């Protein structure tokens, strides 16, 4: 395992005593402050972006596989819901790819998609509450993503903040 040899191997991290004094400001440290020498332009999928890539990847798989199955097996039950699931899957996939590829163009595209995603969650969330009969079956965005621990509504907000930060760092 490519373990940096300089690190003394800590025995069982969850022990309460802290063996090695790390920088004493764990919360307030700026993102990537612990990762110097990261010169690659627009490393969108690095540092905190790595976590975003994972979550967007998970939601891509969840939304896409769900909508493929539903469109194939039970299209007539709730076509609107299933098509919306497919659309959200495409949006998630696009953001995932943009984050991984990086660069200013991808950052802008991902920014637009995150905004669209947020709009989608808010619209569909309100719509499902106002007129539940339009949605006989759930989508990822139903009830503001309640079925998915509300991650669908936090994810675009986090994404937008992250993408903005990256922009600020580049200037």
């Amino acid at each position, binding site marked *: 395992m490519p373990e940096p040899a300089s690190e003394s191997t800590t025995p069982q991290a969850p022990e309460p005593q802290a063996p090695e004094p790390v920088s004493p400001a764990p919360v307030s440290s700026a993102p990537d402050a612990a990762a110097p020498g990261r010169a690659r332009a627009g490393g969108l999928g690095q540092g905190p972006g790595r976590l975003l890539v994972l979550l967007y990847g*998970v939601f891509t798989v969840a939304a896409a596989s769900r909508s493929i199955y539903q469109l194939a097996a039970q299209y007539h039950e709730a076509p609107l819901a299933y098509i919306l699931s497919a659309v959200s899957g495409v949006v998630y996939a696009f953001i995932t790819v943009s984050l991984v590829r990086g660069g200013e163009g991808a950052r802008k595209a991902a920014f637009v998609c995150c905004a669209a995603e947020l709009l989608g969650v808010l619209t569909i969330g309100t719509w499902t509450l106002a007129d539940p009969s339009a949605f006989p079956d759930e989508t990822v965005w139903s009830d503001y993503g309640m079925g998915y621990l509300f991650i669908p509504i936090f994810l675009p907000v986090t994404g937008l903040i992250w993408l903005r930060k990256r922009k600020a760092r580049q200037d």
Partner: protein
Amino acid sequence: MIDALTIALGVTALALAAWCGFAAYRDQPTKDWHFIGMAVVTLLGLAQLVVGIVRLARGEHPHDSVAIFVAYLIGSALAVPVAAFMSLAERTRWGSATVAGAAVVLAVLEVRLYDIWGGSGA
């Protein structure tokens, strides 16, 4: 039997999430011990995949559809190893946070699997 495995996997996933979340909180990357933990969870996930497929092959059926069941099985087998590779590439606290996130996702998948198979395993 599959229920026992599901519960075990859910609990170990949450433990892994807490452990790696703690490492992220302390501003540390994942270390060898964490990777051993990920390996344990991954093995459990693969065991669950095999058990699930064997039970399907023996003619037992999940409460929900077979396609959904298999999709969740595959997803829960892949979540942690994928995050492990991501944390190898990200040697900062955010690598630890990524593994913690994947482990939480895995725990949620296990809850869903439990429902999809039919709750009490009947």
